[in-house]
């Protein structure tokens, strides 16, 4: 069974540009979560999507947005990139049954903002 996949592996942008990160969940999983992991810091929750809807959002500005497609894959968009947006962006998926389920993480996208 394929795990969570993310693309691209690495992304280099300049300040002010937009970045689009993609995630494909494990087959059968309906929930997708996005996290930001800056160097030396923990996992900061960004967004949670389930069944195409945004279920919860972390403490990030509106220029961080995303969506979930009918096939449950997801995109994270970061507009007006700032230097401090440089981080590893991790996507996780789970089969949300109303409780709290194990999250399976992808390998991440390393975003560098110059």
């Amino acid at each position, binding site marked *: 069974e394929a795990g969570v996949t993310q693309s691209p592996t690495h992304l280099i942008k300049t300040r002010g540009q937009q970045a689009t990160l993609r995630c494909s969940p494990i087959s059968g999983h309906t*929930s997708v*979560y996005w*996290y930001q992991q800056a160097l030396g*810091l*923990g*996992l*900061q*929750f960004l967004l*949670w999507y*389930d069944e195409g809807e945004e*279920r*919860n959002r972390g*403490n990030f500005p509106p220029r961080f947005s995303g969506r979930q497609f009918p096939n449950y894959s997801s995109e994270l968009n970061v507009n007006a990139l700032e230097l401090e947006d440089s981080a590893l962006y*991790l996507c*996780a998926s789970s089969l*949300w049954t*109303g*409780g*709290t*389920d*194990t*999250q*399976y*993480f*992808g*390998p*991440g996208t390393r975003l560098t903002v110059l």
Partner: protein
Amino acid sequence: GQQVMQIPQYQHVQEGEDFTTYCNSSTTLSNIQWYKQRPGGHPVFLIQLVKSGEVKKQKRLTFQFGEAKKNSSLHITATQTTDVGTYFCAGAGYGGSQGNLIFGKGTKLSVKP
């Protein structure tokens, strides 16, 4: 909002020594999960604790959930070099936010052979 604090931030041990990381939540949790992230890797699920006072073991790893469901610990007996990595606890609340986890900042474990 809900916060999950984890200590220590770093731990350096000699191979064979024990290791413990502690996790404390500002609010009562519905459950707590533990993940391990190897250097250069991504977090991998280790275990979930749900019941008050629950203790679970995985070989040399012992996980505990406090009676008040606000704190947890992970203890590794006789560390090995393969234990190197960052250990994260992640707490889940109740109600509408139950589906997402709040991660602690992690404890980075290094093991000297």
